[in-house]
């Protein structure tokens, strides 16, 4: 047993000594957390940025848009990630929140691929609303197979939910009595929809893949598909900005990082992650995002 302890110690100790050195020196840390939609972009950018600026450390966490905004407001984080706008309530509570937009994204209504392939390719806004209200409970009621609908909702502080509910009901805090499950991050929602064969949910378009298909929205007599083109030209109705929230104007290392995200290289990362760069000078070659697995 002593050997085991010794072995562990020998393994950890060299790392420890190097660590103690850096401990003494200290370094700048940028703490970022929030929306899981913005997370992939920022995570990748942080990796590249840190390799160029070794004295700046960036920690990134998930949590949801609500966590990001509140965190930025209370000073827990240097940058909060949000996939929705700041509400008037939040603005009142925190004096000087500043928003920097780094990209655009859309929230698609997604269904399990089995449902999509069984013929449900389009739903109207009202149908989706009824499904979430629990008034439509079987896929056959909307042209699909005879199977109960597994309605997947999201935690109420998630930016994706705010935007989706606002579109469906005009109220970002609407209740969804028809919901069967509640998920948190985009990853979890994607996984649960893929695992099921009769689910419906709300997901950032960058997360659609072969198991999770985005359906067209029937509105105003036309069907609008959830494609990046439709988001860019403004036709897709459920679109949102991808925001970085800071307490006041960004400065110092935080400003450096944000500038990096806004630079051409940073914006290319936005596109590679499956979203739309804010300036969008060049066409994006992928339709679905990098989370297609």
């Amino acid at each position: 047993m002593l050997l085991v302890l010794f072995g562990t110690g020998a393994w950890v100790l060299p790392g420890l000594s190097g660590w103690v050195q850096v401990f003494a020196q200290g370094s700048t840390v940028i703490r970022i957390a929030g929306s899981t939609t913005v997370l992939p972009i920022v995570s990748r950018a942080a990796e590249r940025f840190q390799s160029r600026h070794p004295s700046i450390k960036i920690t990134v966490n998930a949590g949801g848009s609500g966590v990001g905004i509140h965190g930025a407001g209370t000073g827990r984080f240097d940058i909060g990630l949000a996939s929705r706008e700041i509400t008037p309530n939040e603005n009142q509570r925190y004096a000087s929140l500043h928003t920097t937009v780094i990209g655009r994204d859309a929230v698609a209504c997604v269904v399990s691929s089995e449902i999509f392939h069984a013929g449900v390719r389009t739903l109207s806004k009202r149908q989706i609303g009824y499904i979430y209200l629990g008034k439509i409970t079987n896929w056959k009621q909307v042209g699909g197979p005879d199977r109960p609908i597994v309605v997947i909702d999201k935690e109420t502080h998630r930016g994706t939910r705010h935007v989706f509910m606002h579109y469906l009901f005009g109220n970002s805090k609407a209740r969804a009595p028809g919901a069967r499950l509640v998920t948190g991050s985009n990853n979890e929602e994607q996984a649960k929809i893929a695992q099921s064969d009769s689910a419906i949910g709300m997901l950032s378009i960058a997360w659609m893949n072969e198991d999770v298909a985005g359906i067209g929205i029937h509105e105003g007599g036309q069907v609008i598909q959830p494609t990046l083109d439709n988001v860019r030209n403004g036709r897709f109705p459920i679109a949102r900005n991808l925001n970085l929230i800071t307490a006041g104007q960004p400065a110092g290392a935080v400003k450096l990082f944000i500038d990096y995200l806004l630079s051409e290289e940073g914006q290319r990362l936005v596109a590679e992650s499956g979203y739309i760069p804010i300036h969008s000078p060049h066409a994006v070659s992928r339709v679905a995002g990098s989370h297609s697995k």
Partner: protein
Amino acid sequence: MIQHSMFHEKGPVFWWTGLAGVMAAGTIVILFASLVIESVPVFKAEGISFLWGVDWFAGENYGALPMIFGSLAVTGLAVVMVLPFALASAILTSEFLSGRARLMVKAAMELLAGVPGIIYGLMGISLLTIWVRDVFGLIDGNTLFTAGLLLAVMILPTIMTLSEDALSSVPGELRDTALSLGLTRMETVTKVVVPQALPGLAGAVFLGIGRAMGETIAVMLVIGGIDRLPQPWFNLFAPGQSIPSKIGREAAEALGFDVQWSALIALGLVLFVMVMTLTFAGNVLLRKAR
């Protein structure tokens, strides 16, 4: 040592160990007090009806009933499902196995009791939910039942090993007397040993219940996460929410923020009271058995 009062000996050792002692013993008191103090805001906002409110929407309403129900439901399920297995293996080990085999089984149980909850969670979300859905023909496998099943497996080693202790500590003479009176071995077990060990067995079950009620991660990933009472209330194949699961999901969002934070702490307080009552009862029973 001739001492008239505890404070007669005032050397530094006394004070240092005393400090440690007070810290250790005082922790739970501080814990409870903090839970109570931090819960006040939500009770002010919702009144005592917080405990039976059925609607929870952060920023508007806070009602704890779905979570309380969920915790009780999954724990109840877990206990009902685990009991036959735990008792059977405890009886087998204590009454019918040789000394060495018994030690091996106990060692195995101790190892298994240490398996981290996240591993059960991983199994649950990647395998169990799909299995439950397919075997029971449900539309989705994230249900109270699934969580109960997972918990049952989690607490099996704990209940088994404590029950085994209770059974082994029944004096051998009782068994010998019963056998000499013509009872078969199984009859000895059911009519003599088990009744004698009942307080210890009950204690083991209570402690297992306490552990099941407090488990967060494994439950969080498979229970469905929806703050709703099942319709009808006994439909355990519906999704739901337990107290630790709710806290786990919302804590990061609410860290420190007035009413929502207070509501989560209040949930914690309810859980604390429930678990403490059960554990207290369990400990009393276990000590009666010794």
